[in-house]
């Protein structure tokens, strides 16, 4: 079974801090995604990566950056955390071939105080 592991289930940080969210997948998938999920707004794509060192902006990239130095790891960085970035963050991966399901991690619930 594919396993997507997010480094923390719960995280509390302060406004202005630089925050790193890590995601690791064990199935050699080319595509990796970062979403945030908020009540009433659903799941929104922040960034995705289709290969090592490659990235594309999703629908809401402002205030975020990403890093993909190795195929299995995709990091989401909040450069200077703000309270409106309090949310549930979900990482997913999928192979590049054909139409394959996205495999999700369990999420990180991030609170910015």
């Amino acid at each position, binding site marked *: 079974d594919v396993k*997507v592991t997010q480094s923390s289930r719960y995280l509390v940080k302060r406004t202005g801090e630089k925050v790193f969210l890590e995601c690791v997948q064990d199935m050699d998938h080319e*595509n990796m995604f970062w*979403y945030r999920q908020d009540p*009433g*707004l*659903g*799941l*929104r*794509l922040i960034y*995705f990566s*289709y290969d090592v060192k490659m990235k594309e902006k*999703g629908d809401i990239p402002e205030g975020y950056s990403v890093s993909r130095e190795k195929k299995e790891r995709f990091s989401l960085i909040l450069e200077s955390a703000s309270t409106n970035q309090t949310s*549930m963050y*979900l990482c*997913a991966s*999928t*192979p*590049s*071939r*054909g*139409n*394959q*399901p*996205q*495999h*999700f*991690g*369990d*999420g990180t*619930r991030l609170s910015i105080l």
Partner: protein
Amino acid sequence: SQQGEEDPQALSIQEGENATMNCSYKTSINNLQWYRQNSGRGLVHLILIRSNEREKHSGRLRVTLDTSKKSSSLLITASRAADTASYFCAPGGAGNNRKLIWGLGTSLAVNP
């Protein structure tokens, strides 16, 4: 990529009853996927139906696809309390599923 819209937004049923959720989309698709999300967890893939298929089964799940009406339905038969979750559809275009746009889902509550 395009968004699927699930209907109803919320559904409450008794254990043993069937639950039907619907999904509509706007343009042509290559496939459509259904996912489930338990409260506070990530999404789990349930089933993928291709555009040339009309119906697909997996255990107690039955998915139909009507490309002429641009709609799909997910039927859960003989529901259990453990089926309580949110359910999302994701229409997929040609090529790989690099980007899926997610709707708000259907929140299903199965009461014991």
